[in-house]
């Protein structure tokens, strides 16, 4: 009798276990990944004087990503970039970029991106839709996101994402140099993020 009870219990556990392997793929709650500001960056690329492509970056990127590594749902991003952390590699140019003509960092301290889901393109790649707020103007943007890696250990789990999207900066009221052709209107943004989950997080 005891043997049958144990066998019956194991079968029940097995059945529940089997069910839990199939079901959570669609319904598992997202895990919240806190972005690592040291290993996250936001880069932008703009056409300068109709000639070269110029790169700049923001050094202070913070936020969270809601994503469950066991399912295929698109991650949800809540990313904040400090506008005065803009870094072009040239101090004088940084001054101009922080000034009212460009990012107006005194008035608009952060640039934010909040996504609202998206569609799966292939394994580990999604097209997400979200709101970008720049210079106090919020516009919907579409970004292609890929997972660049997931590392799990008993101590901490880490994951990386890379998002690419293109905007017309004039949509946000950043017009300097467009009419004279010194800087292009379209800007490509590449956001490299790394987030972690601490034990118990």
């Amino acid at each position, binding site marked *: 009798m005891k043997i049958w009870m144990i066998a019956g219990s194991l079968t029940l556990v097995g059945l529940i276990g089997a069910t839990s392997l199939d079901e959570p793929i669609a319904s598992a709650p997202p895990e919240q990944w806190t972005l690592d500001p040291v290993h996250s960056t936001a880069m932008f690329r703009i056409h300068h004087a109709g000639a070269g492509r110029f790169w700049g970056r923001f050094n202070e990127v913070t936020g969270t990503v809601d994503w469950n590594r066991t399912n295929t749902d698109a991650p949800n991003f809540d990313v904040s970039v400090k506008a005065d952390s803009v870094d072009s590699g*040239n101090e004088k140019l940084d*001054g101009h970029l922080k000034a009212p003509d460009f990012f107006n960092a005194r008035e608009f301290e952060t640039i934010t991106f909040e996504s609202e889901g998206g569609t799966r393109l292939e394994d580990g790649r999604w097209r997400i839709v979200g709101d970008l707020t720049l210079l*106090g*103007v919020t516009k919907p943007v579409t970004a292609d996101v890929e997972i660049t890696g997931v590392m799990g250990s008993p101590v901490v789990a880490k994951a990386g994402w890379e998002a690419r999207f293109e905007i017309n900066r004039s949509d946000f*009221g950043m017009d*300097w140099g467009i009419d004279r052709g010194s800087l292009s209107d379209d800007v490509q943004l590449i956001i490299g993020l790394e987030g972690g989950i601490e034990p118990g997080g």
Partner: protein
Amino acid sequence: MLESILMSVGLPALLMSVIVTCFWWPKAFAGGWWGRGTVVIVLVGAVTVSFIASVGLPAWPPSQKWHGLVWFATALGILGLVDTTVHRDQWAVRMFLAGLVGLSASWLLKLPAMSQLTVGCAIGIGAFLTAMTDARGGRGLTMLGWGWASAAAISMLTLVTGAISVSLMAGALSATAACVLVLAIIFRARSVGEIGGGALVMGGLLTALALTSYSYDYDTVPTWAWWLSLGSIPAVCLFEVGAFARWQGLSASIIRFVFAAALPVCAILLNWSLIEGALSG
């Protein structure tokens, strides 16, 4: 950058010079209200055209705080035109108008990390002090001279902060003041020597431009340099006290100009290494 300077400094100064010429050349306008009002129109016009050339038509409400500069300039222009009708001795009316300048500044020009009270008081005081120098005749040419120097200093210091559009607006004001000064000498426009309103506008615009640049700066320019760039305003007021006030004539105008312009020129010279760096960037 050269194209920006031509469009946002050269073009406004050229347009305003044409306007001045049109109003001062015909003798019918020479001594009338339009002769004096022209100075107000061109000073405000220079800043406005420069803004439009750099940024485009201003939106209401302003999409960015500093865009309020152009709306404030418009209000200042209206008050400046009213001021041209005020008699020299009606200092209480001038004080009232300067108060309205301060009020309009606190409403229209909101600056980051600066209270509306500070903005209104600073710009109102700047406008009041310069307007009081208008209370006596023969100050128009001097005002254009020190206004040119002060606006040039603000323009150069603002260039260091990276706020190029604001720098070009101050540059347009400076270039226009210089052009009007030259045209006044060419046309021997006595009315310019007796202007009222031009100084109220000059004081209001200079203080507003300096305050805007200061509020957006990341400590790249020392605070004392901004004070020096506006030093012309209290300096020219000193010449309205006691025996100095009765001092008239060309020599008095030249001394007033040299003394008042010396402070902004010092602001430029003492920060030349910073300005040179910004100009070469």
